[in-house]
């Protein structure tokens, strides 16, 4: 059928289901990438523009671990995740915290600056070539009838659910987690009860980076990496965070799934090229009409 001059093809239920399922698995990955961003925003109220670049950096780390030492990407998580934490901690404590004076737009620009530096350093050191990790099991999977799901995708889904759960447990059960929630709610009050707020900020940023490093490990078998990879994920991650509600982990999960499904369906019906516009459109619509997202708290 035709809408607005565009040929909308008719697809069988099977094909559509296949797309939806593909979208769920894709969405799980988006959710994991967005989880770190949600945490950082929820606590620091920073829109971390460097998030995509950090993902890209982590993916390169996974790639090189595989390339030079034959480390399996999932195993690489063991050292990439802590490494990410340290890097993120240092970035917040050493750079962002020192230059942003707490002002919203400045932080956005500073993280933009960081992303530019990281991306172009990657370009300089690693060149623009696409690199892919090849694992022996990346084509094995499960046949669901309407579509075929490969193991890496399944691991990614499990991984994202697992990390969301871990994060939730951490935030509600551990002392640091409680301190983080405390700082998120009431910065000055937290200071008054003796919490080192700068340290907590850095810990939060470190956690967010660690999560994105975990996402990188889970993405590596399926996605190639190049210096611009981060930029592509940034907009998607932002859309997920805004859709789910800034600061809500459940929201990030749900948002991720919704975006994944919408993107797949968009690609199916509008074509590979135009389908990508669904993300921008959703982002714009949410910002205009429901900026607190589906699950977000209305903060003043």
């Amino acid at each position: 059928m035709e809408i607005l001059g565009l040929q909308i093809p008719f697809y069988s239920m099977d094909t559509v289901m296949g797309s939806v399922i593909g979208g769920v698995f894709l969405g799980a990955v988006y959710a994991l990438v967005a989880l770190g961003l949600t945490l950082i925003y929820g606590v620091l109220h920073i829109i971390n523009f460097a998030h995509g670049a950090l993902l890209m950096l982590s993916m390169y780390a996974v790639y090189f671990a595989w390339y030079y030492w034959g480390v399996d990407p999932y195993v690489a998580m063991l050292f990439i995740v802590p490494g990410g934490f340290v890097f993120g901690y240092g970035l917040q404590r050493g750079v962002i915290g020192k230059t942003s004076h707490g002002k919203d737009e400045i932080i956005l620009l500073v993280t933009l600056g960081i992303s530019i530096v990281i991306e172009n350093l990657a370009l300089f050191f690693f060149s623009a070539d696409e690199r892919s990790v090849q694992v022996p099991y990346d084509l094995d999977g499960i046949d669901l009838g309407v579509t075929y799901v490969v193991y890496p995708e399944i691991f990614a889904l499990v991984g994202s659910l697992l990390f969301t759960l871990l994060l939730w447990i951490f935030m509600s059960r551990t002392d640091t987690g409680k301190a983080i929630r405390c700082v998120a709610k009431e910065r000055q009050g937290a200071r008054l009860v003796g919490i080192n707020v700068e340290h907590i900020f850095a810990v939060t940023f470190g956690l967010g980076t660690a999560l994105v490093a975990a996402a990188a490990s889970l993405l590596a078998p399926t996605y190639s990496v190049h210096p611009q990879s981060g930029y592509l994920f940034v907009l998607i991650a932002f859309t997920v965070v805004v859709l789910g509600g800034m600061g809500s982990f459940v929201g990030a999960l749900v948002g991720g799934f919704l975006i994944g499904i919408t993107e797949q369906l968009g690609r199916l019906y509008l074509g590979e090229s135009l389908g990508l516009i669904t993300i921008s459109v959703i982002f714009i619509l949410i910002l205009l009409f429901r900026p607190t997202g589906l699950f977000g708290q209305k903060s003043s």
Partner: protein
Amino acid sequence: MIQTKQYIGWIALIAAFVAMPLFISSGRWIEFIELTLFAAVMGQGWNILGGYGGQYSFGHALFFGTGAYIQALLQFKFGISPWIAMWFAVGGGVLVGVFVGYLSFRYGLRGSYFALITLAFAEAFHVLARSFISVTEGGRGVQLTLNRDPDQALSTFQFTFSGPFLQSYGYYYSILALLLIAFGVTWWMERTRFGAQLVAVRENEDAAQALGIDAFRTKMGAICLSAAITSSAGIYYVQKFLFIDPGIAYGPAKSIEALFAPIIGGLGTVLGPLVGAFFIQGLGEITKEGISLIWGSQPGVDLILFGMILIMVLGFAPKGIVGLIEAAWRKVTSDRKGGDNA
């Protein structure tokens, strides 16, 4: 008396740029200054919305790209003269500005949210430009025919094959003209009621509203002016390079380029974008030369430096180079007056 000194300063600066070709014959230098002036025009466009208006846009490529595409497509598809097409290019850019501005400001988007939505719009247009092949030629881009007839140089607004003077300096004077218009408009705006109200909205939107300023209308005015100037840069780009594609038009590169110069040079000042552009382009050239001596040509090396400078300026010199110069000037004059300058 100070006023007269300022005017003399401005006139001297303009005269220097106009007369520059008389003193510089190296094509390489002229090329360098052209690129710098281009960056300055883009930067001034951003500066009006971001520096004076306080609304930071992360998607200014929107206006550049629209201006460039309209300029290119009207010539490519309909054979319209570039001198006529340019009015539509600017008009188109302003329309996009009205569209984005209306949605963003009507729904009260400020600060980071505004930055993100401009980014989203730029990306959306990027995808649209790639997809609607029948309109935009898609990923292949629009390639304008090179004019080889010197007699047609002016009418086709192409100076590669033209008389000796135009061949060397035609593009230089084109971008200089755009710069003078852009900077002239900005200088004039600073001295109008609109300019004062725009700055008030930037400083404190609520207080501005309490003082009778229609913040929505003011911001709309700013985004239209900003769009007009930025899309005019798109016109120059198309005439000079005779090619435009979705990535160049709406990709992140131009959006980022648009904000470097004014932030580093000095937000909310007339000269900021020019100073910033020279500083960045100059440093960029030096860096690229230096790096290429050891590692050969490496794209993006200059951006590493720009990113770091951006961060440092934001953190430690938020008023940019112009701000630093002004502060130094004040210190010098107050020292001269015996240190007592309340």
